[in-house]
């Protein structure tokens, strides 16, 4: 397991969030709000973060480690440092259709979908940034 708290200060959390694909296009000051709803969690190697059918309530940002995302045993992708997963749930608000497991001891930032939506509703700059970030992720996938 990694040592707890790799982001002891908000500024360090902001600097990390700024590098993550989905928030990379957001204006810097909006990240202060995102940092306030992002909680650091540690997951051990082999630990399951979510599985198919779980309620989709969080978006995860990988600060350290590697996460395997799969569907019905078929591997879809690996989320590594500065990448996010759990994004589809943010958009569709459905149950998880994938399974996420830590391939190594990992540190993640966990952002509640509803908290993020609240922020997006109140700060169009965040919405704009997140949409640009999603579009960037999609472009990468296509």
């Amino acid at each position: 397991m990694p040592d707890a708290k790799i982001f002891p200060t908000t500024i360090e959390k902001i600097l990390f969030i700024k590098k993550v694909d989905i928030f990379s296009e957001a204006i810097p000051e909006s990240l202060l709000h995102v940092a306030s709803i992002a909680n650091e969690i540690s997951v051990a190697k082999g630990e399951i973060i979510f599985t198919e059918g779980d309620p989709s309530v969080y978006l995860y940002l990988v600060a350290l480690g590697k996460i395997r995302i799969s569907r019905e045993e078929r591997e879809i992708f690996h989320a590594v440092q500065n990448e996010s997963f759990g994004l589809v749930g943010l958009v569709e608000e459905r149950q998880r259709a994938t399974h996420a497991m830590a391939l190594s001891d990992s540190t993640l930032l966990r952002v509640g979908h509803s908290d993020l939506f609240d922020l997006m509703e109140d700060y169009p700059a965040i919405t704009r940034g997140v949409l640009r970030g999603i579009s960037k992720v999609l472009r990468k996938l296509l």
Partner: protein
Amino acid sequence: MIRAKSLLRKVIDIRDDEIGTSILMFFYFFAIIASYYILKPVRNSLFLEQLGAKNLPWVYIGTASIIGFVVFLYNNLSKYFDKRYLVSGTIIFFLLNLILFRELFKLNVDWFSALFYIWVSVYSVLLISQFWMTANVIYSAPQAKRLFGFIGSGGILGGITGGGITNSIATSIGTENLLLVSAGILIFIVFIADRLNSKTRITQVDSTADSKPDQQDESVSKIILKSKHLQLIGIIITLNIMVSSFIDYEFNLIIEKSFSTIDERTAFFGSFFALMNVTSLIIQVFLTSMVLKRYGIGISLIILPLGLLIGSFGMFIYPVLLSAILLKITDGSLKYSLDNSTREIMYLPIPLNLKLKVKPLLDIFLQRFARGIAGIIIIVSTTFFGLGIVHMAGISILIILLWIFTTFGLKKEYLNSVRDLLRSREILPEHALSRTIDASTSQMLSEALKSQDNDTILYALKMLESTSFKSLVPTLKPLLTNKLPEIRQRTIKLFSKIGDPSFLPDIEKLLSDENYGVLSDAIQYVCMYSDKDKEIQLSSFLNSPDIRVRCAAIVCVANSTPKEELGKVQEYIDNLLSDKNADQTLVKTELARSLSSVKSPSPLHDNLINLLQDKDSIVRIAAIKASQKVQAESLVPYLIENLTDKKTVTLARNALAKYGKRIITLLSNALSDESQNIDTRSAIARVLGKIPEEMAVKYLISNLGHDSPYLRYNIIKSLNKLHNRNPELNIETGSLKKFLIEEVRRYYELLGIIMENNEVEKKNQTDDLLFTTLQSRLEYSFERIFRILALIYDPSDIYQAYHAITQGEKTLRANAYELLDNVLDIDLKELILQIVDDTSSKRKVEIGRARFGIEKKPFVQLITELYKEPDIWLKIAVLHTIGINKINELKLLAENGLFSENNVIRETAEYSLKLLRAV
């Protein structure tokens, strides 16, 4: 070399990367016109001497006939040869022709002068057209406006030089040998043209994608017939050439009469062309760019016909040598300077591959065709009707008036073409949703309500909440027994909304419903419409252990009790709120919900004041929703308080907006209240943006001068919303212009800070939060400027221009620049175009400092000033930059941050000091 470049930059508005090509273009045009003005005096004097001015119309017609063939040949050759080789080949062909003519003139045959006259016309038209085609490929519209003046002056200097050479050496080397001098210049032209065209080849191939696929294989005539813009260019060219031919004819007749020998005429032509080109040069240097940049194409298109109108009046009244000289000088000098540059700009919005097809036809064929028509008119009017110079001047006046009229249409079409170019990439901003239910929608909803899928039913019920649905009542009734409580509850609400008691038997069945929401709404409905003994019924409800039942009953009592007896109802409420055994969150939220059903106005609504201030956001949310419904003014200040909480801001905003015009003054006072925080004031601005009243517009504008960019952004955005949704609202543009200028000043100030920041910090710019923050603020500043412009001008034009500019593609940016250049008023044009221009940030900062007197400050001072601003994020970013870039001079600021009230500022200050200590 560096000095020469800097001198050039001082004289003309030219960028570093444009200097090389523009100098080549300058000399290219210089050489073409110099060679032409060596040949032109020879051509004119030979013709007048051997065939006389009366025969000029015949060579006009001859030129028109030959040119048709030349264009046909040139177009066919262009299909088989690369443009680069075609241009060089044409020049070499003319060079060989000159050597041949030199030999032919030795034979002393009269009609050779007519042949040479026509040949010189073809020569000038083809070479000049080739030159402008190259220029069109190389330059965009904004570049053209800056540089065509300079490049065009090369041609005028060429004219002066060519005329000068003819004058000075004609007698010493002989007329025939002047052709060899011209041929020598052509060798120089071949090299320049080849160099320029080899540079532009790739651009040409790429730019074929500019046009729509179906346009690529169309014939030239079809393309012109489809484009009103091209048709108007064609009409103006025709009218221009016809008038020019009449003037040329009048001029030559007077010259023929005024000078008796060929030597006198040659000498006169030499000095006349020199004078004409000097005038052209003066216009080109001092007027062309200024008129194009300052007044735009509308005015520049009209100057030549206006000048010729005045000149032709002169000729009409006094048909003497002086009038002829003045008229011809006006024609020649303006045609080759201002008018030429303007006409080339008119082609710029035409997709390049279409332009390459169409331009030779318009410039070469149409020009000569018009000259041929003029020739026929002159022959007919002089031979058959015996008209003289005065009459020709009269005909010219009529044609010029038509020409002036056509320029207005051309300007309009030109702008439409620029708009089309931008619109083809436009993403539609918004789609309005219709709320009216037509027959087919009603049928669709009826089917949805009968669906087995509860999601579908709920969707249909939600749709019905905002519309009229009486025809769907039979379909709704069965839903009262639906398994899903939300469906039952929504159905009761819909029946309550209709206000019809006929559903009572069905709803009474729900008084024992296990779901609280259903039960509460059923009680309210029953209380409202039941005929039974209300007191007994109510008493059982009011004493129910179920909070929701009690609250619903309170509403029933309140709505059936006279105002003066409401004290009793207030007692029920107080008892409820002081019931320590009850879940107070549930009590309060249910009470709030119930109060919303108490008919307005009612003193009971004041209970919402406490609920709006409750510590629990769930209670406040319920109270806000109730306030939105009851709309008591006493609740407004407490709704405003809820704008500070992230959890309630959106609901509070919507609730306040629903109050509408009644609370505009209250809102504007809160907006101007410096004790309110910026987030609250921004939320108030957004509320005002939802109230379509001129007072709201007025108050929003009056707060535009605030220092906070975030507040300004929200105010402007609200104004945009009001303006877009309610274009009939009057917006006072005078004060908006004042704020726009101030916004531009702030833009330059910010750009200056970024420049200073860039110059000092090289260590870690991508991770530098201050740098990225300032960059994003600059983008927002730019957006604010355009948002204000959208309040002054057509929002659609400004929207298109903004998106084209921020997308970054060069051609789109150029088109946007062109649109703005033509749309903006003269007092704002320069101000805005300077920030839109592709010039370097460094240059922009210089412009901004000079224009607004912005002081250049040392980096440390700038950073300190930024830190002092009442902006938490800016303080965090400054502290971060101090640490990450190890700026020890600013250590004091970081130490100061340790004492901030804000937790994140304190943390960042510590983080920064740790980095400083690590040096």
